[in-house]
């Protein structure tokens, strides 16, 4: 079943810049998709259409058959989005409060909010510091807190915008590990990045965006040799003709 259907999606910013142009694609439930492209190619712009943060000029995005612009709250609940700058997406004064922010917005009752917060913090392994103040956390912990914040809304689709930027090696591994667990648990995963190395070993599908258009869309091993034309570095192992290994090994 297609959980995301995008038809002829275009967006032009008010200053005339073309963000994305004529994107048509569909994503199946449970897929692990990596979206790559050079800076300014339109990855963020595309992702922000999935939960109605940006609305299309032409075309439409449908989630499970329902258009995003027809029911934006539903789209935001269904698509959890982790932004590039972990610092500026933390709202609460404590780790617990921050995770509770989403469920509270959904007007769930207090018990349910608490249950979801505890469950999400357990998933990202932050339950022991639930009363800590967020700005004292490390970069990796902040990113995981952001993930917990969206997990508490129980989304079916998880969208990560450049999740690995400014994370150290253990931070990358831990986030990757948890992302894979979430994928195994049935979530559909979309990751935007310009650095394929860290994540491509786990992807089912690779999309290359260039100048706002999808220029390649295939299984990673089919197109990995050709990505450098679009400002994305081919992973080392692939250059050397070897199989790409996971960062977790």
């Amino acid at each position: 079943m297609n959980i995301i259907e995008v038809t002829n999606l275009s967006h032009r910013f008010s200053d005339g810049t073309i963000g994305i142009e004529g994107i048509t694609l569909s994503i199946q439930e449970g897929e692990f998709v990596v979206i790559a492209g050079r800076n300014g190619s339109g990855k963020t712009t595309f992702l922000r259409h999935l939960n109605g943060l940006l609305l299309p000029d032409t075309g439409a995005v449908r989630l499970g058959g329902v258009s995003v612009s027809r029911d934006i709250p539903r789209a935001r609940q269904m698509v959890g989005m982790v932004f590039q700058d972990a610092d500026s997406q933390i709202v609460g004064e404590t780790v617990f409060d921050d995770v509770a922010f989403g469920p509270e917005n959904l007007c769930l009752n207090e018990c349910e909010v608490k249950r979801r917060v505890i469950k999400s913090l357990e998933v990202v392994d932050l339950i022991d510091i639930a009363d800590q103040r967020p700005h004292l956390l490390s970069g990796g912990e902040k990113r995981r807190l952001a993930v917990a914040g969206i997990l508490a809304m129980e989304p079916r689709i998880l969208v990560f915008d450049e999740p690995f930027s400014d994370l150290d090696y253990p931070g990358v591994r831990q986030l990757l590990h948890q992302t894979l667990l979430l994928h195994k648990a049935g979530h559909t995963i979309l990751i935007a990045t310009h650095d394929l190395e860290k994540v491509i070993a786990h992807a089912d599908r690779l999309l290359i965006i260039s100048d706002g258009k999808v220029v390649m869309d295939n299984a990673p091993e089919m197109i990995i040799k050709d990505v450098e034309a679009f400002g994305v570095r081919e992973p080392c192992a692939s250059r050397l003709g070897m199989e790409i290994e996971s960062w977790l090994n």
Partner: protein
Amino acid sequence: MAELTAFHFRPGTSLLHTLDVRFKILSFVLISISSFKAYPSALSVLTLVIFYAILISCLPFKSILKELRYFFVLLVFIFIVRAMFTSASPVVDFKESAVAWQGIYDGALICWRLLIVVLFGLIFVSTTRPSDIRTAVEWFLMPFPFIPGKRVATMMSLIMRFVPLILDQARETIDAQRSRGVENRKNPVYRLIKLIIPLMIRTFKKADKLAVAMEARCYSEKRTNKALLSAKSDWITLFGVICLSILLSIIDT
């Protein structure tokens, strides 16, 4: 910037942690009012109350006092200014020492009062979850139909969240400018402007990103309402505090 962050919640299970926030706020206000017009005898009683509160709250007070060290510098400063200012009034020579004593007494009194209010504030903040304070603010604003309580509460919590971020940002900007030799410019106005403008731009950008992130998490003013429950112990505490305030105002007259 740890100095400015001594005021934060510290989890625990003491009686003070479990009291209803609304009662804690009322008690805090009452005690602050009484200590602002208190004299030594009443202040001594309040000091004892503080010791008792510290004991039952199980807070790590040694480390808290260390975090408050800049506040003590401020107190000393206030004390000196106060003592000198009072003795500077024109008096006849032989009376000078008496007036100086008056200044020292005044200064000590003010510092004592300030210290008591700050310590009570610290105990209050340390034993109360920020989200509970927010809920209580909403509750107190409910009777005023023209004040959007929910919005005020959200703004409050965002400010608390943003202050450390802005401070960090400021330090980063200062360091970056220092490493490019801004100290060679002697004009303080120039340096201030060069600091404030980039700081403001970065803060607004952060605020913008935060707004988008909040939107992505379905922010609206219709949210889960937290229930505040008062128990017998809350009423007893409030009653005790009211008695204490009356007692304090009697002692000094």
